[in-house]
């Protein structure tokens, strides 16, 4: 599925996740966040940077990992990304939805 964000066109799956991470920019992240009713603050970006680090190291994301991350605690994570934090945060970060049950 093609989607237009600003002046660029990106490829997303039917849930709205970017198919190709190389198409991701901060502007695209902001647009996806906006569509999900989230206004990105510095704190959000710290979490997104953490998610990108994990993604680049090919390490799976989990809620337990968030607890141990030292970047953010679980309570704040839920506050920053309401309605399914890992789901929302990965969508904004332009990476695939985590496939884990935990």
């Amino acid at each position, binding site marked *: 599925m093609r989607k237009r964000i600003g002046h660029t066109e990106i490829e997303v799956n039917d849930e709205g996740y970017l198919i190709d991470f190389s198409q991701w920019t901060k502007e695209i992240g902001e647009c996806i966040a906006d569509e999900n009713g989230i206004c990105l603050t510095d704190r959000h970006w710290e979490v997104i940077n953490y998610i990108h680090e994990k993604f680049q190291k090919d390490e799976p994301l*989990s*809620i337990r990992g968030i*607890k141990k991350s030292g970047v953010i605690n679980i309570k704040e994570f*839920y506050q920053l990304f309401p*309605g*399914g934090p*890992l*789901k929302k945060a990965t969508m904004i970060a332009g990476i695939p939805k985590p496939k884990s*049950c*935990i």
Partner: protein
Amino acid sequence: MGTKVKKMMFILSKATIENVYAAFIMANGARMEGIESELFFTFFGLEAIQKKKLEHLHVATVGNPAMHIPTMLGGLPGVEALATKMMKKEMEKLDIPPVGEFLEILSDSGCRLWACKLAVDMFHLKEEDLIDEIEGILTIGDFYNRADQEGTQLLFI
């Protein structure tokens, strides 16, 4: 996003590891999907929230055909402990947290945790025997009253 399930409410009545984890994983999974979740611990399920007991839960080796060992063997001393150790090792590999840590994660994630009044009385437990994440001791009626919106599902484990 139009998800039909809005709230999952679990009643956990057993203390075997497989049942406790089933409840925890489903309750946590709900929160991760943006679904509200609550856990009501009753009868043996109370073992999972007692400070002194929660890290000593076992997998059932007797009367569990899925263990694929003769029932008589499952009852021998040490077999249950060994099976439990093996299962915990496998869970650690999958990054599944131990019971105490899982309860913290659930509580931090906004899953509401309750103890059953009748069972607490029956086992002569006091509030201080239970982990701090327990929000209160409720009757089953109180718990039903929390099923207060459309799209609520109740599950007995």
